[in-house]
C-alpha cells in the first residue's frame, strides 16, 4: 500500500507519526522562538530608549526574560520527551 510505502523508511506507521509530529512541533517552536526574539528585541529597544526609570526597566527586563526562558525551556523539555 502507498501508506506503507511512505512510512517504510521509518519502520512502522507509529514511528512515522512520531517523527512527523515531532518535526512539526519543532517547526512550531522555531516559528514561536523567532517571533519571541523579534518582539523581545522591540520591547527592550523601546524600554531602553524611552524608559524613565533605569532600575524599573532592568527589573522588568529581568522578570520578562526569566519567565519567558522558563516557558521556552518547558516547551523544549516537552518536545524532548515527546
Amino acid at each position, binding site marked *: 500500500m502507498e501508506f506503507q510505502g511512505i512510512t517504510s523508511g521509518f519502520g512502522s506507521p507509529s514511528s512515522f507519526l512520531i517523527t512527523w509530529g515531532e518535526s512539526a512541533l519543532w517547526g512550531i517552536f522555531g516559528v514561536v522562538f523567532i517571533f519571541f526574539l523579534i518582539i523581545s528585541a522591540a520591547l527592550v529597544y523601546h524600554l531602553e530608549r524611552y524608559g524613565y526609570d533605569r532600575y524599573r526597566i532592568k527589573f522588568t527586563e529581568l522578570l520578562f526574560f526569566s519567565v519567558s526562558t522558563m516557558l521556552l525551556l518547558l516547551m523544549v523539555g516537552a518536545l524532548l*520527551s515527546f
Partner: protein
Amino acid sequence: MLTLDHGEEKILVLRRHWFVILEHSVFIVLTLGMSIAAALVVGGLSIPFPAGNPGALLVFTIALFCLSAWVAFFVEWTNYYLDIWVVTNRRILDIEQHSFFTREVSEFRLDRVQDITVQVRGLLAEFFDFGDVHVQTAGERHAFIISNAPHPYRVKEVITKAIDRAVEGSAAKIR
C-alpha cells in the same frame, strides 16, 4: 529619556490609571484560561493518540499559550509604561506610545492653556477615581486629552496652579 530645559522643574508625571492595564490583563488572562481549559478538556478526552507522548504535547501546548499571553501582557505593559504626561513649571509634555514604532510627542506651553475640563464617565471610573482631563490650548492643536488619568480633579488643580504661576512669571517678565 526625558530632557528638561535649564531651570525647568517637573511638577507632575502622569500615567493612565492602573485600572486600564488591569482591564487589558483580564482579557489576556481570560483568553489564556479558556485556551488552557480547552487544551485540558481535549487532553482529558479518551481520544486514541496515534503516536508520541500525549502528556508532553499537552505541556507543550499550555506552555505555548502561557508564553503568548506573557508576551502580549508585556507589550501592553510597555505601551502603558511609555505613555506619559509630564507637567513642568513651563510646559506640558504629552508622550503617547500608540504601538511599537508609533510614538507621538507633543508639548505646549502652560501660558497657552485656555481651559481645563474633567470628565469622569461611569461607575467604575467614579469608584476608582479616574477620568479624562481635557486641556484646551490656543495652539493649532486645540485640545489635548489625558485619558483615564488617576485622580483627575487633583490633576486639574495641579495644572491650574502651575498655569497661574507660569502666567504670573510671564507677566512679571513683561513688566
